[in-house]
């Protein structure tokens, strides 16, 4: 406590609390208890951009084809 890195991490932690408040507001307004909940975890002291650049690194390539499926009338009917 008192060091610069502590202060930086603490500010990030406070920001994460704001995010949790916003994200959890959907659950509180929902009628079901199954809604997702958000809070403190191992990523709470990470800036969002660092979280994205470290952990979110998969992407479909443009040239790759994903066969598009169409909803059939049978499945709609059933």
């Amino acid at each position: 406590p008192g060091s610069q890195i502590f202060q930086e991490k603490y500010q990030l932690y406070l920001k994460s609390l704001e995010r949790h408040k916003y994200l959890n507001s959907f659950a509180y307004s929902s009628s079901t208890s199954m809604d997702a909940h958000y809070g403190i975890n191992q990523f709470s002291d990470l800036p969002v951009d660092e979280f994205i650049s470290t952990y979110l690194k998969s992407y479909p390539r443009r040239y790759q084809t994903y066969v598009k499926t169409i909803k059939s009338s049978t499945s709609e009917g059933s």
Partner: protein
Amino acid sequence: LPLRFDWRDKNVVMRVKNQMNCGACWAFSVVGAVESAYAIKGHQPLELSVQQVIDCSYMDGGCNGGSTVSALKWLNQTQTKLVHASEYAFKAKDGFCHYFPCTEFGVSIKGYEAYDFSYCEEEMMKNLINFGPLAVIVDAVSWQDYLGGVIQHHCSSGHPNHAVLVIGYDKTGDIPYWIVQNSWGTLWGAEGYVFIKMGENICGIADFVSFPLM
């Protein structure tokens, strides 16, 4: 289709892994799908090497990112045999590709398929049941703070950035949801899992779906 289906009930899903600071979610997702497909074929469940895919899948960027379909394409084209995880351990960083003699035990695939099920999650359910766990690419920006429950809001499609493994679904309750295994360790989410509402392509879960053929 059954109201609930979970490949963990058949003991063909390996434990939740931790990619640590290595951005190789794509490799974890693909290796998870291969491990399950191998076990579904009646073999003893095995943990296969993620590091082998990170180091050797030349169309991808190792810990700097990659694509599930590129990895499956590489596995299929080269008929690479994935060795046991203990033979080629995860180091959370890129390394040189190790080659093994043909006689070394390993698991190869017979093909792979890739689908966009964005308007047809029911078809995705059928594929999950018929072929095994599915490697998918989702938008996981809002997952930074996730602790549990079913994600139903503020998780858009159209910005794919993270690969995970769909291992089941549950439609018995008020909110039907996909059961998804992540690779951020068991301390994250619901013991390493995340649940995503079905039917609305939440997080783009049905946009980029692929799986190996064993």
